[in-house]
């Protein structure tokens, strides 16, 4: 089937956010076309690649990039797609294929806490959002019902309706951690888009412990399901359509999207409304690539804020051995956390954070470590058994403040299609580093309460990245300081909307997906009310 030359709505990017916007518009009867740079990939292929990979802990090994739509790869060698301008390397990972990056995620689907929306007002840092928690609450709920979310009842994000299901069963290790820390910390089940019962035709989690790189049974929600749902709702989805430029007319309205097919033939698609949902790095890249004589800094960029205010969640961690057998690896990879440091007056001084306990089986990591140390035979078996049973890890998830100097720009090098590669400018500021320092007190206390020995803090100055790319398309009231308004409509182009984590003006302490989905569902609702599309149906879960 040939790609239509025109549609009412053209959505660029088929990840979880773009697809759920497309789904909602299509459900209301709108004509929607989704253009996806990468190929269509089935879960079976991903599972097969994962099972066949000699590098099981390299979660990207099941997602080889398409030559015509590359994404960053660092192992076994850096493919040098995401250029690093420093001073601190921002080694972002994402996936360019139908369904996008949430094919592999821990399925954390947190809501912000209400104060996350006004940290400038309350704490004198960062920026306020143009909306507040109440504005987003119904859309959080909508997202949670689509994705099948469950969680602990009170983690600081009040809700008007219950979760659509009960939490996934607590793994033994998490139970022991919760019990042993009870005197000092409240350890709660994470809020996740993972089935505790069959939901929407997908089975309950049965504890494969391979959420990343792939849930082999679709017990957790992902963008591939969102893309399927969008198509089922009537949206047309075309893979292998790498949009490299948006064209505007003389009035500044977006007129067309130009894309390359894998053979680098260029095609042009016109539309009434364009929604760029190509992720926190590729979306600003596209806007910058679309510079013209009228808009020399790129589209939507009169503020010069496109690509700026890049944020993620850096993490430091402590690994230690508990004084009892815990046996990480049963159940989901990331089941439990401590949420007491997500908000408080301290936010004027240092970054807030969540504390996450890993439940990833220690076997692969320990095995590689022992072999690299030259340990074999009975000693190997003894030490592997010890680590598999006792080793624990807790990490922080630190907030980063928006800083225009942290940004995605266009690099000097070009990718295989001859399109300039994205380039990052990034560092870890004092606010985040102070949060890291503060969290080390918690790390030590947690280890103490668990009888920890062999404490191994992550190397000082190293911050692991969590791939929650925020801020690069940030929403705000002031057109001079933000890219889009509260509806994620760009300040500069009346028919250009943005969707994705880049729209979030601050990153808070929780994984960005649910926030991005909720904001985007609010965008879709606004679009529908603006356009008066008739026959709109409630956007509940599929198959009902």
């Amino acid at each position, binding site marked *: 089937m040939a790609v239509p030359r025109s549609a009412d709505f053209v959505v660029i990017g088929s990840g979880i956010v773009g697809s759920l916007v497309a789904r909602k518009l299509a459900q209301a009867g709108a004509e929607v076309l989704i253009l996806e740079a990468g190929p269509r990939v089935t879960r079976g*292929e991903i*599972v097969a690649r994962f099972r*066949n990979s000699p590098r099981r802990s390299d979660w990207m090994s099941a997602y080889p990039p398409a030559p015509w739509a590359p994404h960053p790869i660092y192992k076994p060698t850096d493919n040098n797609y995401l250029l690093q301008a420093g001073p601190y390397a921002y080694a972002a990972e994402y996936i360019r294929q139908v369904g996008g990056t949430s094919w592999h995620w821990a399925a954390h689907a947190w809501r912000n806490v209400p104060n996350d929306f006004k940290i400038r007002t309350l704490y004198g840092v960062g920026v306020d959002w143009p909306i507040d928690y109440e504005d987003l609450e119904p859309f959080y709920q909508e997202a949670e019902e689509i994705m099948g979310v469950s969680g602990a009842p009170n983690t600081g994000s009040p809700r008007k309706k219950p979760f659509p299901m009960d939490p996934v069963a607590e793994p033994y290790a998490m139970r022991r951690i919760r019990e042993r820390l009870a005197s000092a910390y409240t350890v709660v089940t994470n809020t996740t888009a993972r089935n505790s019962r069959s939901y929407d035709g997908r*089975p309950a989690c049965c504890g494969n412990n391979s959420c990343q790189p792939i849930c082999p049974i679709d017990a957790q929600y992902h963008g591939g399901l969102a893309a399927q749902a969008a198509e089922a709702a009537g949206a047309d989805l075309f893979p292998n359509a790498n949009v490299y430029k948006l064209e505007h007319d003389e009035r500044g309205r977006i007129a067309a999207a130009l894309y390359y097919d894998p053979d680098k033939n260029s095609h042009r698609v016109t539309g009434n409304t364009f929604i760029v949902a190509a992720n926190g790095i590729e979306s600003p890249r596209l806007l910058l690539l679309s510079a013209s004589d009228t808009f020399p800094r790129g589209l939507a960029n009169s503020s010069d804020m496109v690509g700026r205010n890049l944020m993620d969640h850096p993490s430091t961690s402590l690994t230690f051995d508990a004084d009892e057998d815990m046996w990480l690896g049963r159940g989901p990879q990331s089941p439990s956390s401590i949420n007491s440091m997500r908000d408080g007056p301290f936010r004027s001084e240092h970054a807030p954070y969540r504390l996450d306990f890993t439940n990833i089986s220690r076997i692969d990591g320990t095995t590689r470590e022992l072999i690299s140390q030259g340990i074999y035979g009975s000693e190997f078996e003894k030490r592997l058994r010890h680590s598999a049973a006792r080793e624990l890890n807790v990490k922080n998830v630190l907030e980063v403040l928006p800083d225009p100097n942290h940004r995605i720009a266009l690099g000097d090098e070009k990718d295989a299609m001859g399109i300039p590669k994205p380039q990052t400018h990034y560092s870890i500021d004092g606010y985040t580093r102070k949060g890291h320092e503060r969290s080390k007190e918690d790390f030590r206390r947690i280890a103490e309460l668990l009888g920890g020995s062999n404490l191994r803090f992550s190397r000082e100055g190293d911050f692991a990245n969590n791939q929650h790319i925020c801020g690069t398309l940030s929403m705000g009231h002031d057109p001079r300081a933000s890219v889009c308004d509260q509806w994620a409509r760009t300040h500069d182009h009346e028919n250009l909307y943005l969707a994705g984590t880049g729209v979030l003006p601050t990153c808070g302490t929780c994984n960005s997906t649910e926030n991005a989905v909720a904001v985007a569902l609010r965008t879709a609702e606004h679009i529908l009310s603006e356009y008066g599309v008739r026959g709109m149906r409630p956007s509940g879960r599929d198959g009902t």
Partner: protein
Amino acid sequence: MGRHRPYLPLCFLAAGLWLADGGGRTLAADIPDAGLIERGRYLAIAGDCVACHMAPGGKPFAGGGALQTPFGTILATNITPSKTHGIGSYTLAQFTDAVRKGIRADGKYLYPAMPYTAYALVSDDDIGALYAYFMRGVEPVDEPSPNTSLPFPFNIRLLMAAWNLLFLDDTRFHPESDKSEAWNRGAYLVRGLAHCGVCHTPRNLLMGEKASRALGGTTLNTWFAPNITSDPNSGLGSWSDQEVVDYLHLGHAGGKSQAAGPMAEAIDNSLRHLNETDLNAIAVYLKTVRPIRNDGDDKPPFAWGQASDELDAVRGAPLPSDPNQMSGAQIYDAYCATCHQERGQGSFDGGLPPLFHNTSLGRQNTDNVVMVILDGVHRTLDRPEILMPGFARELSDQQIATLGIYLIEHYGNPNARITIDQVSQLRKGGVSSPMLKLFRIGVAAGIALIAVAAAYYLFRWRRRRA
């Protein structure tokens, strides 16, 4: 979904709510005949009335359940005691005629989608209990149920009078004195209220059950209702009584067999709620049903297969660029091994069944292998819930055929066959039936025959009078 029992899973979800709720009205001890009404409720469950007489998500017995037949969709009616839209005005005699003879209070004929040929065996006592329950134990719903409209000639309900002449034996169950009480109870249930033959007995061109092949197994066009006679290879002869009871009560018998499709619905709606005495009686009776051996059944379906894998051929081998060219082992590895494990052995606790020594893969008819891959198994009434996802959306016809062949070759009966065409037909809802055409011809011939016979007898009768 099966052509004969295509009601949706939602239907039994709602049924579950209804059952959990005590089935409609609360029966206080001070209501006269509370025991009788309660017995009627139990019998209504044994008869699985709610399966058809409730629309998906609808109210119990308010009608609307759709039954796909080769002649069109038959919609069940409102059988609540509503005086306006249900059977609230039925007398016991009228109720009895409807249940046992397929004749409504207004004298019109029911279609034999209502299994009155089986219900004809139900005793007067049990009919009385059912009547008491439907009149006083069921909440009346004053809402109309949709009308059935079949194509000509089946819109002529009077035709059923002729059909009844041929296929309705309007006699009650007579216990056989030389058989045990359990056997007689089992025979009464299997042949009567539980109407097992409706699915498990093949039908002739006029849709009458072939008595000579009773419970010998037949296709429901999508799902296959297997042979449940006492034959040790083709039927249940090698099952222990307890295994039969377990299957009917739990929906699975150890790792040997598990219910899916319409049988899972029948279990969840009806059979699992029967008491142990009745389930045991059903097992005792089934184990004596005249054995029917299907050609080529050299051993029982669960005697085939063993743990095995082809991982050597999979690991390190690149995936083909065309997913349709994936090998059976690759598809199994990608879609099945997570639950059924790499050698088909299932989970350690039996919660996810082994694939070998399993009736599912040991039969010569492989339709259920394909159907379960397409539709999965979904039984919400169980705790823990049972869900095998369907793969209709994810796997192509060719991939399902490739996978199915891998499964039967490794874990099942390697003499069986699975073809891409078969998958394609089953995905579409089964082979489109020539029955309507054949039946029209058959009925026309039947009517002609009856007319001729009637004329002949009329002629003789007049001559005798003359």
